[in-house]
């Protein structure tokens, strides 16, 4: 019980503002009328990660990230001009929150997928951004990084 209280306090501390259960674009994880049953989560996740080229599982939404690491992922994608991605708020659904950790065999949120393949969390995306790999990986997805265009213009 104490653990639970501590964990909640931690979440509240790291949260930025009021908890907003609704995603900015109106797409709600659970509003589609289907809450995830445990046994289905793994199968559904297999489909979800393939549905969009870029998929992010995060705390909060891209419009209002609820954790610094999730926010970092959103900002990195924004810098590269990646607008067309699906963000899923794990705070909305405890089954999803645990389910995606099991699915990816990865203990933390956020988690990023490209073309159905697990890329990593915040640290990995940040390092890929820094060492130039992200531009290359986006190219493989057919996404032209906005940073490339910016570079060209400044030359």
């Amino acid at each position: 019980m104490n653990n639970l209280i501590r964990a909640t306090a931690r979440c509240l501390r790291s949260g930025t503002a009021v908890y907003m259960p609704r995603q900015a674009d109106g797409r709600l994880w659970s509003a589609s009328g289907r809450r995830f049953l445990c046994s289905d989560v793994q199968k559904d996740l297999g489909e979800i990660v393939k549905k969009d080229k870029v998929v992010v599982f995060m705390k909060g939404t891209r419009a209002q990230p609820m954790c610094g690491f999730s926010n970092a992922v959103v900002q990195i994608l924004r810098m590269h001009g990646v607008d067309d991605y699906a963000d899923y708020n794990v705070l909305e659904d405890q089954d999803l929150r645990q389910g995606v950790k099991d699915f990816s065999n990865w203990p933390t949120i956020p988690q990023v997928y490209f073309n159905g393949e697990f890329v990593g969390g915040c640290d990995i995306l940040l390092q890929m951004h820094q060492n130039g790999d992200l531009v290359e990986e986006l190219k493989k997805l057919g996404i032209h990084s906005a940073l490339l265009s910016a570079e060209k213009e400044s030359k």
Partner: protein
Amino acid sequence: MEITCDHIREKLTQKLGAVHVDVEDTSSNRCAASFKVLVVSSEFEGKPLLQRHRLVNMCLAEELKEIHAFEQKTLTPEQWEKQKSQ
């Protein structure tokens, strides 16, 4: 189980043969809720970033259940030397 910087450092040193480990408690009041680690190990050689991070996650699987946030940087001894000289 009490998670301390020393505990994490010891485990990574033993299990991953790390030659250098920096551990920082990044929680606001040093309450062991979040950590940042730098791990230098020759086990990482030839392995992509994702695999390196998975090795660290596996090594600290029990601890990560309790830890709220975890940042990691994984370097080979060669990369570490290079970074130090920069």
